């Protein structure tokens, strides 16, 4: 019977023979590593990067995007307030120069040759120069839009998920409303109202594009805030703002980054699609989609019954290669961060 329990209820240190702490320190190191083993501490991002580096297709994608971006930057000199900040000029011609005006040997739709490696377009401009230069519009719009939408969506979703309740309910109904319309249609409406142009396009894609980020981050935050370290931060007296920015958002970053990378490609395609519909940049601009639009009629039949394939293939290929490379990077990041996610949390045994 329990009445016969003979344990003492005196307080004191627990003595378990064979386990008392002196023995343990003498016998066994508490963990697998020692100071001498010297394995440098790797942060999570360092580990993710080393995993990313081993992913060949992701590295190819990264190389392609970097090359396209560098070519766009160095295609023509950049001057800021009359000061040349970037003097290099890889593209042989100015993208808007109509060549046959100065050089009578050039005519419209000249096929690719050594002097015009991608041929000449319907207005007598050098396609190679236009393709290089066009990256400035497509790529930069992609990055700017994603930077804007991702940051806003991140804060929006974090607030919604963190506070929950009424706040969450209202904020998510707004997101639902945005989701009721296809994104490209919304962008189209805005461009139709505001007219074409660089910042109009940025606005068109940013104004509603954050909704996906908002929903994504909210979901992440909902699961992250269940972690005890969030409660621990509150127990230490941290303010909501610092809990969100120090504990919640950094842990919600991996899916955000993956989605953002893939989203850059989507935005570039969207910009090109509007350009192709004649709603993007002003006609004549060396933007990949707009270039496609201007040579649209040649898809069926060009002048003299021949089809100038180079006028559509090269801008199309530029879009394809960039988006493809972005997706390869996105997949690489996904793998690098995901593998890590599953490895953490279950490590260590005791």
């Amino acid at each position, binding site marked *: *019977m*329990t*009445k*016969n*329990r*003979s*344990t003492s*209820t*005196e*307080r*004191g*240190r*627990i003595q*378990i023979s064979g*386990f008392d*702490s002196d023995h*343990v320190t003498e016998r066994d190191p*508490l*963990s697998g*590593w020692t*100071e001498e083993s010297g394995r440098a*501490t*790797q*942060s*999570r991002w360092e580990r993710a990067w080393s995993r990313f580096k081993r992913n060949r297709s992701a590295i190819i994608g990264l190389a392609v995007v970097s090359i396209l971006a560098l070519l766009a930057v160095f295609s023509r000199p950049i001057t800021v307030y009359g000061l040349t900040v970037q003097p290099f000029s890889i593209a042989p011609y100015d993208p808007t120069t109509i060549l046959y005006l100065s050089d009578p040997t050039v005519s419209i739709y000249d096929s690719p040759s050594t002097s015009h490696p991608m041929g000449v377009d319907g207005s007598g401009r050098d396609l190679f120069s236009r393709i290089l230069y066009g990256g400035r519009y497509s790529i930069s719009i992609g990055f700017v839009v994603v930077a804007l939408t991702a940051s806003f969506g991140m804060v929006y979703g974090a607030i919604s998920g963190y506070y929950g*309740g*009424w706040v969450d*309910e209202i904020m998510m109904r707004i997101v639902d409303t945005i989701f009721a319309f296809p994104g490209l249609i919304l962008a189209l409406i805005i461009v139709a109202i505001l007219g074409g142009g660089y910042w109009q396009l940025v606005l068109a894609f940013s104004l509603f594009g954050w909704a996906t980020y908002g929903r994504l981050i909210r979901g992440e935050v909902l699961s992250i805030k269940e*972690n*005890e*370290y969030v*409660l*621990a*931060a*509150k*127990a*230490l*007296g*941290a*303010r909501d703002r*610092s809990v969100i920015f*120090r*504990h919640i958002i*950094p*842990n919600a970053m991996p899916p955000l980054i993956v989605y953002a990378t893939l989203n850059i490609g989507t935005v570039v395609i969207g910009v090109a699609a509007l350009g192709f519909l004649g709603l993007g940049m002003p006609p004549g601009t060396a933007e990949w989609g707009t270039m496609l639009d201007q040579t649209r009629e040649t898809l069926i039949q060009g002048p003299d019954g021949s089809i100038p394939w180079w006028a559509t293939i090269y801008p199309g290929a530029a879009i394809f290669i960039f988006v493809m490379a972005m997706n390869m990077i996105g997949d690489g990041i996904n793998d690098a961060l995901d593998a890590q996610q599953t*490895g*953490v*949390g*279950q*490590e*260590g*045994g*005791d």
Partner: protein
Amino acid sequence: MTRHDEPILRAENLTKYYDSSGGVIDNLLGNSQWVKAVDGVDFELREGETLGVVGESGCGKSTLGQALLRLIEPTDGSIYYQERVDSEGGSGQREEIDLTEVSSSRLRDLRTDLQYIFQDPFSSLNPRLTVGDIIGEPLDIHGIASGEDRDEHIYDLLETVGLNPSHAHRYPHEFSGGQRQRIGIARALAVDPEVIICDEPVSALDVSVQAQILNLLEDLQEEFGLSYVFIAHDLSVVEHISDRIAVMYLGEFAEVGTTEDVFSPPYHPYTEALLSAIPEPDPLWEGEQIFLSGTVPSPIDPPSGCRFHTRCPRVIPPAEYDLEQEVWRSIMDLKLRVRGVDTAEAIAVLDDGGNGDNEPLTLDDIARDNFDSQVRAEFDLPQTIADPTVEQSLSQAIDELYAKNLGAAQDLLEDAFTSPCEVHQPEQVPTGKTHRISCLLYDDRYDDGQFRSTSGGTGDAIADD
């Protein structure tokens, strides 16, 4: 260390109900269901002592711990903390603060006095911060130290909890569970607290590591004069480190007393069962484990009267019957089962003597007598109960069950067999200077099967819900 008469942390009628319904729309429609996680707990923690809070999982002990620090907002009740105020001429002056009343910025300051150690050493450390930053966070928040001073502080804290200062630049995933728990302790110590609530700090750890962590906590208590609330699901863990123990069942304290009181008679029936489950190292130990019938009831709709009556081995029989305790418990079990099922078939596992076909049997397949004996076998009831009134009511109820009149059977059972434990809510009865038990067995108002309402009316303890 001087002990003050006033408890350093005290809670009155602390209550936390959770809304278990699905969100705002449900709330609007009034569909909320309240989970009574902590239901009117009175609580005292004296300076320098360790109070063990023990209970099965789901009994609300973690909620209690978090509500005490207002990590979750209590639904009702007050929490008083004696804050040390520095007056000239010496320390030791304390001033009482109601934690439930203070503003959130004041509460943030008070976090330097009241700290929490978490159960899960894996999820309680942010995987993206270095150990140094984890321990440094409270230093940053409260502006305790910065720059080199901060590093010094962090190294000191790591050494205090038995880690190497060079660990500061590593990430939590590089440590074992025991080491992570040490990091969590260092983080709580960083603000130089007075009270630490330890929420099952060792239950996720190996037994050998458990002892190390418990010893560390004891050493720290001595060194820094800390007061602990130590939450555990097992009496054996708190046995050696607690000065006092509170046993919790379904959001209420069943028994509170010094460790000595709780570990020796008189016992609360629930504590008795918990104690019987602790294995003894003594080979001659002839302990007999008390098995509790049933599972922990849902805190959404806790049992009336004494919340333990659905499982209590010593549940009190009505005064008019002369019954053995086990038989009475079995009758209660039968009654509770009838209350919970939808069809009479579900009362017992029916068996027609082994015809071999696997068809589930219905009541029509077996005879009345057969059914009777199977029901009795299921609930360990004797074929005939000695007390004739009891026997009569019981067989009538079984008849009704056999006739598939579930409702009638239930009414019969409820009429004939109602324990005072179901009707009266026990109050905390002092059974010694330091010992209080919430059980009608020890209640003076309840004697020899007669319930006497004490004058003043507070004793009309009909179920409160």
